[in-house]
């Protein structure tokens, strides 16, 4: 791997599964959302979350959220049995996710259940979200398998079935298949988690019906003061069902955003988004579970440049 710290832009060189003549874009980095046809857009709260009927954050409103201590206290069981192996899960404490069943309306229909077929024939599930009429954003490891340890698997996915607004067996917008994929060299060549993002380019403009999320490049202070929202298709719930949760950002660095928002395998690629003036704006692409926080690739300027190019 080259010394990417001396020239981090190298990691954001766009690469494609098929020939492309796209030109990297630049300029503004607050790309607006679009709500699509007959959106029936659901309400938002004053705290920057989705207003889901009957759902209150089990931990209370944001202003009352408990701030966990930074010191790790031992479990009482350690007094008798000694320290356990590190087994903190990507659902931190109680599972606070709520199922969304109104998936045919905006914004929920922007989220896509993904069925991924890798080059060795193995199949996987993930999540994506529309950023334009033909472009679904997701994690890099969803579209390009890297360092799998399985012969024939490390490569572009051979196909991705995209199911917007899926609710179990219900596919309100059908399913579209694509093998026209995008990621960046930082992921495809180096396998660096800091560059773990990609996109699926669809052969139809289905996003014109579903609408899409905007995205923006935000300062550390903006992100740390924000409520972040995540919705996706986790594998631990009934197949193909959409689940939502929100919380404050826990920490950020120049390439990642960390948050105590419950996720599970299958939610890779989910939008980590802010709500501003009623509009939804992606701030990161969820990619990793973790013991204390989960994390996503931050929409930094180079990431936003590629997103603009990929939605062109």
């Amino acid at each position, binding site marked *: 791997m080259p010394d990417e710290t001396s020239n981090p832009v190298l990691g954001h060189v766009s690469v494609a599964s098929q020939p492309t003549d796209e030109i990297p874009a630049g300029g503004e980095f607050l790309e607006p959302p679009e709500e699509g046809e007959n959106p029936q857009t659901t309400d938002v709260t004053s705290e920057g979350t989705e207003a889901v009927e009957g759902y209150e954050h089990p931990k209370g409103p944001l202003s009352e959220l408990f701030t966990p201590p930074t010191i790790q206290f031992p479990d009482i069981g350690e007094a008798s049995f000694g320290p356990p192996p*590190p087994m903190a899960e990507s659902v931190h404490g109680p599972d606070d996710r709520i199922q969304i069943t109104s998936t045919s309306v905006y914004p929920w229909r922007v989220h896509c259940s993904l069925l991924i077929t890798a080059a060795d024939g193995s199949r*996987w599930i993930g999540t994506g979200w529309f950023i334009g009429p033909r472009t679904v954003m997701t994690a890099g490891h969803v579209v390009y398998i890297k360092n799998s*340890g399985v012969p024939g698997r490390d490569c572009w996915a051979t196909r991705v079935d995209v199911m917007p607004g899926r609710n179990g067996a219900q596919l309100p917008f059908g399913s579209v298949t694509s093998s026209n994929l995008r990621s960046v060299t930082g992921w495809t060549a180096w*396998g660096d988690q800091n560059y773990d993002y990609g996109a699926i380019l669809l052969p139809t403009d289905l996003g014109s019906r579903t609408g899409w999320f905007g995205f923006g490049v935000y300062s550390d202070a903006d992100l740390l003061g924000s409520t972040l929202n995540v919705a996706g298709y986790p594998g631990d719930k009934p197949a193909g069902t959409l689940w939502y949760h929100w919380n404050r950002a826990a920490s950020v660095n120049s390439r990642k955003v960390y948050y105590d928002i419950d996720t599970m395998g299958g939610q890779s690629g989910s939008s980590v988004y802010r709500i501003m003036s009623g509009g939804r704006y992606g701030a990161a692409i969820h990619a*990793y579970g973790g013991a204390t926080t989960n994390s996503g690739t931050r929409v930094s300027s180079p990431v936003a440049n590629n997103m603009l190019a990929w939605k062109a």
Partner: protein
Amino acid sequence: MEGLSRPLVSGVVRDNRGEAVTDARLFIVAGPEPWPDVAALSDEAGRFSLSVLSTGTYKLQCMADGFAPWETVVDVQEAGAALEIELQGR
């Protein structure tokens, strides 16, 4: 196109009659360092394999509609780990 080789957790998913379970979802729920938040699907023979970033102790879960959740803690070495999963009906 092959890169670094990661330890591999592989195995087969069957029901309590010994028949292969297709499209069971297998994923990591806890581990020693961050893990990709994807889920593998078992194939028509019930087989699956997913890599982990490093050796260590992982908690894995297997879910399939119509079956009770299955979970295990496994110590993954360089050579990987093999699992025989038997799902029970709800």
